[in-house]
């Protein structure tokens, strides 16, 4: 196992653990205001200090991790459940009108800057975590559709697929039984990367006020709230910023590591 994989797994699981733990325990009630103790720098009582309402930043970061992960997870889930079957279908019917419709539809979604459309969607549907999930999810669909189709196309030329066809299996069955397992590692790697992009997108949306609504903490909004106070309470911006960096870096390292680990060619070379 590579160093990337271990470091990435460690950082990602750290964030995941914090999010899971927040369901049972946070050092303070994240919503409890304590205005006389606002803007405290990090200390023994408040590990990450307090925000402009005197809320415990450590508790907010924990709940924020939960928000980020939930939004990114569901959004990637939407992308995978819709994108992968579309990609498999397009590959199985390569060159037909179905392939064309699916891939041009993908191009259409790809053509728009994703954050701008996400802002449009949340502006129409209203701000909130659910709509942020939908907005980010939609942009994950073409990513998975395209990568699945690309990988599947080369597989369709292989002898074992020919063998399967000769034995009378239909396109759908071949896609499910033979193609999908062989593109799975690629998809896992891409899923990890998309997951980190989802976290970034959620932070971006809540930064402009379109993500999870107060009082639910989210890293992006913590950053936005900190803007005017950076000059005298830098921890307000540093801490959610670091949380985002750690998560995104962790997931990217994990994705890289997984790719190296799962890629048979590299595995052979290593052996």
């Amino acid at each position, binding site marked *: 196992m590579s160093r990337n994989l271990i470091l990435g797994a460690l950082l990602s699981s750290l964030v995941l653990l914090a999010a899971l733990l927040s369901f049972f325990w946070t050092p303070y009630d994240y919503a409890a205001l304590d*205005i006389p103790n*606002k803007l405290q720098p990090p200390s023994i009582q408040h590990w990450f200090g307090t925000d402009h309402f005197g809320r415990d930043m450590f508790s907010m970061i924990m709940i924020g991790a939960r928000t980020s992960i939930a939004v990114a997870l569901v959004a990637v889930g939407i992308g995978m459940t819709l994108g992968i079957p579309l990609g498999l279908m397009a590959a199985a019917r390569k060159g037909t009108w179905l392939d064309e419709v699916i891939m041009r539809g993908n191009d259409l979604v790809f053509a728009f800057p994703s954050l701008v459309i996400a802002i449009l969607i949340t502006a129409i549907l209203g701000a909130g975590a659910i709509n942020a999930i939908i907005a980010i999810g939609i942009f994950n669909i073409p990513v998975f559709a395209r990568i699945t189709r690309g990988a599947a196309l080369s597989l369709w030329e292989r002898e074992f697929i020919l063998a399967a066809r000769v034995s009378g299996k239909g396109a759908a069955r071949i896609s499910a039984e033979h193609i999908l397992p062989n593109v799975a590692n690629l998809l896992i790697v891409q899923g990890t990367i998309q997951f980190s992009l989802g976290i970034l997108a959620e932070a971006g949306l809540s930064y402009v*006020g379109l993500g999870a*609504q*107060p009082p639910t903490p989210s890293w992006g909004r913590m950053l936005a709230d900190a803007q*005017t106070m950076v000059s*005298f309470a830098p921890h307000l911006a540093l801490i959610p910023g670091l949380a985002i960096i750690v998560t995104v870096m962790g997931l990217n390292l994990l994705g890289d590591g997984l790719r190296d680990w799962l890629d048979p060619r590299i595995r052979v070379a290593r052996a």
Partner: protein
Amino acid sequence: MQRGEIFMTKQAFRSFASALVLGTSVFATGALAKSDITIAMQLEPPHLDPTSAAAQAIDSVVYTNIFEGLTRFMGDGSVVPGLAESWEISDDGTIYTFKLREGVAFHDGTAMDAEDVKFSLDRAMAEDSVNAQKALFAGIESVEVVDPLTVKVTLSEPNGNFLFNMAWGDAVIVAPESIETIQTNPVGTGAFTFGDWVQGDSIVLNRNPNYWGEQPALETATFKFISDPTAAFAAMMAEDVDAFDNFPAPENLPQFEADPRFQVIVGSTEGETILSTNNKQPPFDDIRVRQALAHAIDRQAIIDGAMFGYGTPIGTHFAPHNPAYVDLTGTSNYDPKKAAELLTEAGYADGFETTLHLPPPAYARRGGEIIAAQLAEVGIKAEIINVEWAQWLESVFKGKDFGLTVISHTEPMDIGIYARPDYYFQYDSLDAQTLMQTLNATTDPDERKKLLEEMQRLIASDFVNGYLFQLAKLGVAKTGVQGLWANAPTAAIDLTQISWAE
């Protein structure tokens, strides 16, 4: 006069040239005090006609600078003669005879006379008038021109507030000759003429050499629009602007205070910041629920948390700096236990759910978050809905589709809104309506004060809205800028009083 102007121009040219050489105008002018200023404000006016829109930003730019009324507000809130030099009031208080100043001209050269006054008032009170404060003119029965410098205004009943009403930006005197283009090229009688408007950036005003009154110290003034609080802080710190009318981020004030380059001028506005409550929407139609709201709110926490300590607690819809103010904060003191009891009594032992609409300013967004947390403690679950101004006007103010909202009512002396049952918070009380009627018909100052006090007590004991605090005016300026209004008795940036030290 002409010689003087030529001389001025030459000198201006010289200092301009030397400014180029030295690369900075501050040192170039030497002992001469600066005669230009750049003042930043947060919102850009939609247009420049104060008589056809409620936008405060319009008044900030044009009030007393471009347009003047019969009377005018001073920085301390007093009402003094404006274009009317003096006036006589008939014994029954219904006829006001205004004597206009002589030799007043509009910026286009036409004379300001009684006809213009009649035109302005008739236009404001007309059926199809788009004036944002038509109530100011409602009591006017007729306006007559006696001679070019005398106007007789007849009221249907005595109105003790009439001279105060005529000082509003909505009651300024405009000319029929230039009314067509007033929104983009305002022509008034003030000490400054409209120069240039770069949409989205700034408006420039120039000194009016033919002004009837004392010449202002400033030659030009630039209003710059900076809506983002972070950008506002950066612009101030980089000295891109000389002053900020009302700084949007109170948390940054200590930094300006600690910096010898700046002065911080904290004053009061006419903005009663309230937790506005939809009195017609259940459960807020029950006075016990409204009282519970009032006791659930900790004002000091909101002032400290949202405004970093700037703001004065209020217990009714009235400005604390007004002599008639009654401190009623005790009526709605912070007492969550009592709030919970009242809710139980009203049948909401387990609380209830409602919405809390929050417009963009920090007082609303931050204050609202604190209020939501405080209400949660007594079991009221207020869902925060952040809205832009347009949405707020549409759904809350016009549509009346809200439970709670946080808003600052910045019009001066606006307690009269409690006598308007169709106003967005929908308080329908016969007592309040009769009281306001009596007040409007009363001219005796002592009697008026008593009635105003009674009105304040009435709305406080009816717990119409949650009364939070009086919005502070947070002026920031470079050291050396003099004459800025500390308080804001009306939205205005009075350039005529502003000068640079030295």
